[in-house]
């Protein structure tokens, strides 16, 4: 009899605490995924290209910075090593792996060429250049 009056009022505080914890967890982990790309790369503009809608989880993003340095997920490598990596990728996942090249607009073509040649040598002929369709803000 004494306990009854307390029952109708549900204590929301722990639930709200947990919900906020979850929100913060997901927001921070979603951010982590984007950290794998080099933010200093200034992509060229391509206002007429088709926008990126779906992302293949197998895709390999090769980055070429302003100085022509090649990297994957912020790990710098020589074109020879890139070839080894791509050969391994092809051996593991076949020749349908999408290759995306994120090259700085100011870099010389020879650096991009080195990256492309490494892919071609590994058996990947189809590739994509990443560009900015529309600048935000």
């Amino acid at each position, binding site marked *: 009899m004494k306990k009854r*009056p*307390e029952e*109708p*009022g549900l*204590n*929301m*505080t722990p639930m*709200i605490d947990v919900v*906020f914890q979850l*929100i*913060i967890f997901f*927001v921070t982990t979603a951010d982590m995924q984007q950290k794998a790309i080099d933010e200093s790369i200034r*992509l*060229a*503009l*391509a*206002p*007429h*290209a*088709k*926008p*990126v809608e779906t992302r293949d989880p197998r895709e390999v993003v090769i980055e*070429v910075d302003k100085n022509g340095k090649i990297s994957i997920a912020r790990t710098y490598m020589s074109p020879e090593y890139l070839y080894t990596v791509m050969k391994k990728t092809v051996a593991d996942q076949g020749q349908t792996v999408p290759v*995306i090249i994120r*090259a*700085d*607009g*100011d*870099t*010389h*073509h*020879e650096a*991009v*060429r080195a990256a*492309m*040649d490494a*892919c*071609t*040598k590994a058996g990947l*002929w*189809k*590739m*994509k*250049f*990443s*560009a*900015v*369709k*529309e*600048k*935000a*803000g």
Partner: protein
Amino acid sequence: MARKRKRNLGGDAGELNMTAMIDVVFQLLIFFLVTQKPIDTMANLDVFRPSPTPPKDEVQTPPNMIRIQVLPSGVITINDRTVGHSELEMLLGKLAGLSQNQTIMILCSAQSRHEDLVRVLDLCAKTGLVNLSVVSIN
């Protein structure tokens, strides 16, 4: 007296104090608004890459193929004729009108900027040409 106090405590626990929660929610909102960076809309440009072969491959190029050349100075030529961006766009539009599946060969010199190549690819994408082959030249 003691009884009354007990009842009061019970009433407090039932009502949720919103002030603290709203404070925290606003703090979070402001934090995310400040830290968030606007995301650019990205686009991908498809290209084909012929296998790396010695320069003799260039000689074998059939003469009727459309060749776009990107030179180090940013100058663009189409079948050895220098063109501006608007003229190139017009010519590509005409070509696309004939067939969108014809192969366009884009010859890019080693010292040219990547941005110039992307601009040509963008114009090709605008006109709907899909078979784009990027060849590097020295």
